[in-house]
């Protein structure tokens, strides 16, 4: 089962704007970009084409791991505004 199929089991209400933001200039300097491989929802992807971090915030499970994992402490992490984000039925 791939990650998109996993995420399709969840109920989301997409927020108007991203609750996850980064300074892309700092991401450009980052060697590891651990956010792109530790996230359980595969929110982060590095685009070589645009030289920028793609943030699929609408898939976020609000676990907070990325904020702690980021070696550059470059992820501004807050909760989605109320009535938005993920909703667990069987947590």
């Amino acid at each position: 089962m791939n990650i998109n199929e996993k995420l399709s089991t969840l109920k989301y209400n997409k927020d108007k704007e991203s609750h996850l933001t980064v300074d892309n200039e700092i991401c450009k300097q980052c060697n590891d970009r651990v956010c792109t491989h530790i996230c359980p929802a595969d929110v982060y992807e590095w685009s070589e084409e645009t030289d920028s971090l793609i943030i699929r915030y609408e898939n976020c499970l609000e676990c907070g791991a990325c904020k702690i994992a980021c070696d550059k402490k470059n992820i501004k992490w807050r909760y989605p505004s109320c009535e938005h984000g993920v909703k667990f039925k069987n947590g």
Partner: protein
Amino acid sequence: MENNKIQVIVIGAGPSGCASAITLARAGKKVLLIERGDNAGDKNMFGGAIFTQQTKELYPNFIEEAPIERAIIQHQIIMLNDNDSIKFSYKTNSNEIPNSYSVIRSKWDNWCVEQAIKAGAYFAPKTLVKELIIENGKVIGIKTEQENYYSDIVIIADGVNSLLAKQAGLRNEIKDSDVTVNIKEVFKLPKEKIEDRFLLDSANGAGAKILGGPLKNMFSMGFLYTNKETISLGIGISLDDLKKLKMKPYDLFEKFKSHPSIASIIKDAKIIEYSSHMIPEGGYNSMPKLYKDGVMVVGDAAMLVNNVHFEGTNLAMLSGKLAAETAVVAINKQDFSSKNLSLYGKKLKESIVIKDLKTHKNSVDFVKKHINTITELYPDLACEFFRVLHNASNEPKNEVYRKFLFRILKSGVIFKSIPLGIFAMEKCIKR
């Protein structure tokens, strides 16, 4: 509420927040319980089970009245190697009240909130606290997306990420070695199939901890709980090990699920939900400051998890209750200073919360140091032992024994087990 002022604001309607709210309401204090989800439990995930002792102290009739799934009467430890597995299974058949129950958080947390409301607490769901209002170093209220609320005391129960404990200056940034990232899938299976697979009768359930195999040589463990008509299966891995692992966490989980001994548990079961959440496992050394003027922090927000015995909800409930009892004393005295709230710290120290965290303050570091022995060597040798014992071949038994003995000596397991034995002994003796 007059002028948006109330005696106590509790932020977060999980096990600790609900415990605070209901304790305060029962003492006749005015308390507002705030939750960011549309309903309590919407944002929450755990293994998981609740523990009878601390739950009963708050909700005496929960076994009869609450939406519990199954009584956990069977506890398993499953050790995997690459292909095989060995399982220790303990089942209690006594008539004593079971020690823990599996629950589904959306149902359970909501029920706890209902009890708090019945006791007289105010409940505000769909409310996100943006920040604390701090005046001259004293917490005097909260800013939500809609409006400001003021209180004599704020109890922070907003979970592992606790942005508010950080804003209050109670804690520093969390370290990646102090948390585990947990992912879980819930599998739908007919009731009878669950009972057949775990040799259970209806109403009773099983819990398992799973180590080794795909999870070897990292601080990682699988977990499993049976619910009424679902099985919760997941893995946790410390964030520092996950960073080193060149594999996505859900791919590790897929690898774990494909181990033959795990695959058979969830055979033909349909995944109904995927989720993830962090658990604070840094223990005693990662605890924040627990109180300051006008504020206390409880549950996961205070990193109160016993990472060796997999206890969290009970410590959350207990800490929530003790903070509320402290708030009652403070309200009666009309003194909300840090000095007066230090009673909360004292109560925690006298309870199992800090006593147990202290007992295990170096346990995670120790386990991490011996992770290869625990998650690879022991499962390998244990599986090998059973293979040798049951392998009827044409090889004479004394040849077989000799080879196994040689394998044991060569592995260094005896030497490697000495520190583990000493460590366990220390935990028994040290006070």
